[in-house]
Each structure stands twice: as C-alpha cells, then as structure tokens.
C-alpha cells in the first residue's frame, strides 16, 4: 500500500514570497490533516479535512495560509506571504473516516522542510 506522498521535500524562499505544498493521501482515506512542526516542538494541527469539507481550521493563520482539498483526494497548502517564523516542517497525514465520532490513527508523509530567509 502506497503511503502519504508529499512534495517538495525541501524548500527555501525569501520572506514575503509565496510557497505551495502538495499532498496525496493514502487511497480511500477520507480524513486529511496538515500539521506544522517547528523544531523542538510537537506537530500543531493547521487544518483537518473530512473528504473535501473542513473539520477544523482554528489554528490556521488565515491571513496568510490557505488550503484546499480538491475532489476530496489531493490537497494543497499555500503560504502567501511567508514570514521568517513560518520556517518549519509541514506534515501531511491521512486516516480512515472517523469511528464513533473520533479519528482513527493517522499515517504521515515525509514532510516538507520550509526555510524562510
């Protein structure tokens, strides 16, 4: 079974530039997550999709971050304009649909390491 695919693996941009990350979840997984992991910290949920609907985006900085999940499969996370503090690893994960209202285990991609200079 193929895992969660993410691209690119690494990205270096200047502040105020824009950047986009792509994620292809495991086939059949209805739930897709984007997490931000700053060095030395745990992953912070940015947005969670159930099919192509948003379940939670309460921690997404909506003035600069946006995400979409077209047709309930692939997803793109965009940052525009980037700030220095956006330097982090961006992790995409997917899981099967919720069980009795709770999410099952999520499977993660390798992540995209973003450096903003």
């Amino acid at each position: 079974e193929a895992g969660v695919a993410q691209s690119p693996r690494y990205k270096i941009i200047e502040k105020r530039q824009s950047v986009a990350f792509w994620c292809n979840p495991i086939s059949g997984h209805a739930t897709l997550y984007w997490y931000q992991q700053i060095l030395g910290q745990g992953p912070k949920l940015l947005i969670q999709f159930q099919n192509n609907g948003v379940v939670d985006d309460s921690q997404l900085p909506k003035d600069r971050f946006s995400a979409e999940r077209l047709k309930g499969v692939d997803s793109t996370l965009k940052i525009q304009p980037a700030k220095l503090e956006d330097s982090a690893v961006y992790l995409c994960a997917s899981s099967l649909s919720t069980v009795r209202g709770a999410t099952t285990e999520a499977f993660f991609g390798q992540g995209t390491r973003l450096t903003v200079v």
Partner: protein
Amino acid sequence: AQSVAQPEDQVNVAEGNPLTVKCTYSVSGNPYLFWYVQYPNRGLQFLLKYITGDNLVKGSYGFEAEFNKSQTSFHLKKPSALVSDSALYFCAVSRRTLTFGKGTMLLVSP
C-alpha cells in the same frame, strides 16, 4: 479542548533496561490514544493505539502502552530497550481532531 502532556523532555536509559515514556491527557468523553515515533528527517510513524478494551495495548517493535483512566495516563513502555529505539516519541489524543504532545526524546546508551 483536548490536550496532551509529556512531562519529560528527555528520557535516558541503558540498553537492555526497561523504559517508560510518560503521557497524560485531557479530553471530553472516551479518549482514543496513540503513540508515534519520529526518526531524524522523517515523518511520524504510528506505533500503537488504544480505542477500547484491554488497558495494556501492544504495538510495533516490542512497545506497549498502559491506559489508566483514573490517572488519565497512557505511558509507553518496553521491557528491554535497544540503541535503535533512540528517537523522538509523541503521544496523541483523538476525538474530533488529533492533538499531539510536545514530544519526548528517548536516548538509549550502549
């Protein structure tokens, strides 16, 4: 709001000794609990989960975890540590969303 606490930034253990990595949680309703491991420059890898049933759950690579409802804890354990177990370990709790703790670095010395 749900949350996870991992009180130890780092755990040191000698190879062959038992290890415990601590986790406590806060969530409304019955918790779904998970442990993940992260190796350098890699994504998170699922180790084990507790959904319901037996309080002691077994997972990958010889790891197990004990769910204690009264103490709201879900500690990760292994009877005999290996040097290759050295990594960053994350506890997570799930209801509507999946929330992670800050992580505990496990260092196993030869």
